[in-house]
């Protein structure tokens, strides 16, 4: 793996993310890049379901929201250290989604998609009624929790570097899965599930494992994100907009590719920043995301990387 140019390309990307805002202590750039990193984490983990196995998950945001809740709750109610609660968030959500996946992933194609929509609605309804997590008013964190890290200003930098680390892990994970035997099985499922099963791919197990693996890093990212805002409530944690944006990103960059999804996430973040600050468009964010997705699905189903692969065939050897 170390000899592959793509591995070093990922490493270089992480290095740029980690150093760019430090030079000149640029806080604005840091805030913009942390969102880009978050989009890359969510989109590349969704991409493993969508692009490799061909399973659409309309509720991928559940991982992010539940991870955020577990982490914030452990910190606020049980005074766990931040690192331990982040890890616990990832592990808890992964285990939960493994059991969940073993159930709903017996469903095929469209039925699975329906179930994922329901998962999001039901988890949100559950959290809104769940007393220990503050119901619909959520949980607030006191600024005191950042004291061990050296105060809020330092903590924001640490959170940023952790987010970039999670982004790097997501990209390495996508790459490792894609080049492994596990990934080959997933791609076979995406092509033709029946044929894959006949050739000996344990399809229900692979799908459940994938569902669980793709939950781990988004859950930790959710923990970081809500530690950063020091506040969590159901409508933020299970925001349908974010779930949607992640699908748009994966389709924009090119489903199943790693480079495309990362580039798509970065550009979408820039576009979104522009739309939010613009007077006319700030109310139409969903509309624009929807129109963009419709145009991609209708006219460019293979996304940005499909275009690049077609016009520069040599890139296929280097860019995954």
């Amino acid at each position, binding site marked *: 793996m170390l000899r592959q140019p793509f591995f070093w390309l990922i490493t270089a990307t992480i290095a740029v993310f980690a150093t760019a805002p430090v030079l000149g202590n640029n806080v604005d750039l840091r805030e913009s890049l942390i969102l880009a990193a978050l989009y890359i984490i969510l989109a590349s983990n969704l991409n493993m379901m969508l692009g490799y196995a061909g399973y*659409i998950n*309309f509720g991928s945001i559940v991982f992010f929201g539940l991870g955020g809740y577990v982490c914030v709750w452990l910190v606020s109610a049980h005074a766990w250290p931040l690192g331990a609660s982040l890890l616990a968030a990832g592990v808890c959500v992964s285990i939960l989604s493994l059991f969940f996946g073993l159930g709903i992933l017996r469903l095929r194609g469209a039925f699975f998609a*329906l179930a994922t929509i329901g998962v999001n609605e039901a988890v949100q309804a559950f959290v809104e009624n769940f007393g220990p997590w503050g119901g619909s008013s959520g949980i607030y964190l006191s600024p005191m929790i950042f004291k061990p890290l050296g105060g809020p200003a330092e903590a924001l930098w640490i959170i940023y570097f952790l987010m970039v680390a999670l982004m790097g892990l997501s990209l390495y994970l996508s790459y490792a899965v894609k080049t492994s035997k596990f990934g080959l099985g997933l791609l076979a499922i995406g092509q033709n599930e029946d044929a894959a099963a006949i050739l000996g791919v344990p399809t229900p197990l692979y799908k459940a494992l994938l569902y669980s693996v793709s939950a781990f890093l988004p859950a930790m990212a959710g923990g970081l994100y809500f530690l950063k805002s020091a506040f969590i409530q159901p409508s933020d944690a299970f925001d349908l907009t974010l779930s949607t944006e992640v699908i748009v990103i994966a*389709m924009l960059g090119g489903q199943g590719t790693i480079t495309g999804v990362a580039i798509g996430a970065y550009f979408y973040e820039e576009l979104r920043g522009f739309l939010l600050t613009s007077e006319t468009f700030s109310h*139409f964010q969903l509309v624009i995301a*929807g129109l963009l997705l419709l145009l991609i699905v209708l006219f460019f189903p293979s996304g940005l990387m499909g275009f690049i692969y077609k016009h520069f065939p040599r890139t296929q050897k280097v860019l995954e």
Partner: protein
Amino acid sequence: MLGILASIIDGVLVGFVYGLAAMGLTLIWGVMDVINLTHGAMIVAGMLALYLLTGTLGASPYVALLPVLIGGFIVGILLYWIAIHRMIGRPPLMSLLSTFSVNLVLIGVSTAIWGTALFNVEVSVPGLSIGRYTFPGTHILAAVLAAAIACALYLFLHYTRFGKAIRAVANNREAAELVAIPTTRVLAVSVGIGVALASVSGMLIATLFPFTVLSGDGYQLKAFVVTVLGGLGNPIGALIGGVVLGLLEGLVAPFVPVSWTLVIEFTLFVAVLIAFPGGVFASRRGAL
């Protein structure tokens, strides 16, 4: 005890309307294997149409039925040509994404125009009193109208030439084309009927409960639950599924706070999908 019975009866009445909503979803699935994720938005469109027609024109709520039906049909035909036509014969992922994106656009536009305020349409129909309990007239009338529309759809599918063509396409599209059925027109009309049913059910729901622009998601989930209960692609099963869901809602309503209903319904949804992938009330596949 009587209170529970009254709650169940009321639930069943509302269940007819859920059944009608699910019939639209299941018809489109049965004919072209496409799950229409704009369903929730179309239900809301029916609700808003009722609100605007009664509010601005001062029309009686039930007069709005015909314009909503026709409007829904036209919107459905447009939806077919915009989002579904190019997706026929491609992986199911693509049609899910295309209808999903249209749904986003519709929800985005309507929240930008109307916000997320609660709308309420005042409808006064004398209720029916039995002993201490009164069943609201709106619930009874909505159930009767929903059942009548479901019967009309059944008669249309089974006793008219075009209805038979729809069933033929659902059964086997290539074979239907071989016997000179204009399949593209059949597909477009099926989407039109499906959306018309969604918007009419939305209109009927708006006569029962207040709503917001975002209410569609919850009702869409209910329609999915009903659809899997009745078996995907089976309109009559959908009506029965709707009644069963209403019955369950009525049964749990006295014991569980309203905010938990969605969790219970979703658990039921997954359990049914796993235990009976073909639907509980489906006698055979493709019963359309």
